[in-house]
């Protein structure tokens, strides 16, 4: 009988991998420790061993208990990916375009993606949100944000 690859088995594999990474880092730091005393290597090494052990246990145990998981349909997946793309765009454009412009663009895109409002409604909502955050964070709390190429 062919065993299906369950989520827990994949997770177990991921944790084994992370454990190995942590263990290797511990080995790298080992020469830096003082004799007889735990150094910066102690916890990465210990954590690595724990993660490998528990990850292996989970991967083995999972074959008896597959867990059904529901995934988003095509439409929902596209919407989620679009939101992710907008947020990544916001992250990348903030230093380039500055706080007001990038926030305005990102929030307009998100309002459209989440609510499928008409564009003029999205732009209006986005303007309100951007203005509110600008007053709150920049004017009142004087947080320093990047000004971008336009110097705003």
């Amino acid at each position, binding site marked *: 009988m062919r065993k299906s690859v369950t989520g827990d088995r994949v997770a177990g594999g991921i944790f084994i991998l992370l454990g190995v990474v942590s263990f290797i880092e511990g080995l790298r730091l080992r020469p*830096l420790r003082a004799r007889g005393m735990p150094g910066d290597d*102690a916890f990465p090494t210990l954590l690595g061993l724990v993660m490998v052990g528990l990850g292996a246990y989970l991967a083995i145990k999972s074959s008896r208990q597959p867990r059904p998981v529901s995934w988003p349909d095509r439409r929902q997946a596209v919407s989620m990916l679009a939101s992710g793309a907008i947020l990544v765009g916001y992250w990348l454009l903030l230093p380039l375009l500055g706080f007001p412009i990038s926030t305005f663009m990102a929030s307009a895109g998100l309002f459209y993606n989440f609510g499928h409002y008409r564009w003029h409604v999205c732009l209006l909502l986005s303007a309100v949100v951007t203005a509110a955050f600008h007053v709150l964070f920049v004017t009142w*709390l004087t947080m320093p944000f990047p000004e971008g190429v336009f110097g705003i």
Partner: protein
Amino acid sequence: MDAFSHLITGLQAALSISNLLMALVGALLGTLVGVLPGLGPTSTMAMLIPLTAVLSPSSAIIMMAGIFYGAQYGGSTTSILVNIPGEVSSVPTLLDGYPLALQGKAGPALGIAAIGSFVAGTGGVIGLTFFAPVLADQALRFGPPEYFALMVLALTVMVSVSGSSIIKGLLIGAFGYLMSLVGIGPTSGLPRFHYGAPVLYGGFETVTMAMGVFAIAEVLAGLEESRKAVTHHKIEKLFPNLRDVRQTMPAMLRGGTIGFLLGLLPGCNPAVTAFISYDVEKKVSRHPERFGKGALEGVAAPESANNATSSAAFVSLFALGIPASPALAVLMGGLMIYGLQPGPLLFRDRPDFVWTIIGSMYIGNVMLLVLNLPLVGLWARLTRAPYAIMAPVILILCLIGSYSLRNSTFDMGMTLIFGVIGYFIRKYGWPTAPLVLCGILGPILEKSLVNSLAMSAGSPMIFVTRPICLALLVAAVALLLISLKVLRKNVKEEY
């Protein structure tokens, strides 16, 4: 009583128009700072230090103290309403607060959080008033071994917040701990897990992890479910009733006591006391299976604990001159600008100043309750606002909040990455709280272990030869056994 008469004098001074105004400004700012994720009291207080040039010493310190303890009040609002922890210490609050909001009970949850914060915050100030010197001396007996044992005790909370699978909870906790190892090592001062990228030298902020795993992941899940609002349940009541208050008062008192006693220890994070009090409350409850699904006690206990901790932190500041946290270090800086050196001599040389501050803390707690309680109904109604409007605001707010931590877009990116990780963690039914818990405890655990072994020249016997340390370790084992027993009982009842 000497302290009582000093307090009356202090209250009279605190009731002046200028001091009342400063207390109000501090309370408002603190609440706002607590509500906004990523923005902590430390940076806000630091930004307001220049005001010390124009304000009197008592007015400036009253305002900054108000920001400090007000932030603990505000942190619960977004935790309960939209699953965003405003402060890391509000993470335990969302474990039951957000489920309550989903059931249309955001009003009672917010109300209980405000009342619990007031009860415990005021109780903490009473402790500060009458017991500061005695308690401060006892707190000095805590060294690295005791801190290590305390962190081990706090780690037992992982069992309570791991759901039905301890293995998964341990693995998620280990992952959270692994994330906290990134950055500069405590002994060598050299970076770990950097792989040649200087941006990793600073490590990951715990707030970044919390916002990603809880808030971003929640919004992604809401998008997947095509949610129309945070809750579709009818909002049954906007405020807690007397029965809710009576039901949760023991939790408030227990949480407040735990928060105050642990908060006396310099460096004790309010998040640690909040998690511990949540765990204790779950253990003493006759129905622990309600926790994680919308138990009001699960909101009352951690909120009371974190507010009591913020009051207790002033004990070590005023009585010993030790700032318990970065925020109080900023406040101490403000004091020193005025030529005031915190410590036992401050009580002797400037009793008028110290007792004015303490008097204002009583007033500040009342102000916070008066400010927050009427707004509960308004906040609760937000849970019925269109999700298509709430969700983009939440996402943008999270990213702005993460940027504001260190003025770095790196933290924004990490919030997004943790958001994706959090989405998959939830998808497969894994617990998320252990990730944040171990992210907070891990560095303290490691540092205290290393310092303890340095004290004992490498001998682990130091942990069993010091009475307080041994008592805490025994308590940790006892709590672990109780947690396992409760977990086994819950799993049996569920299946």
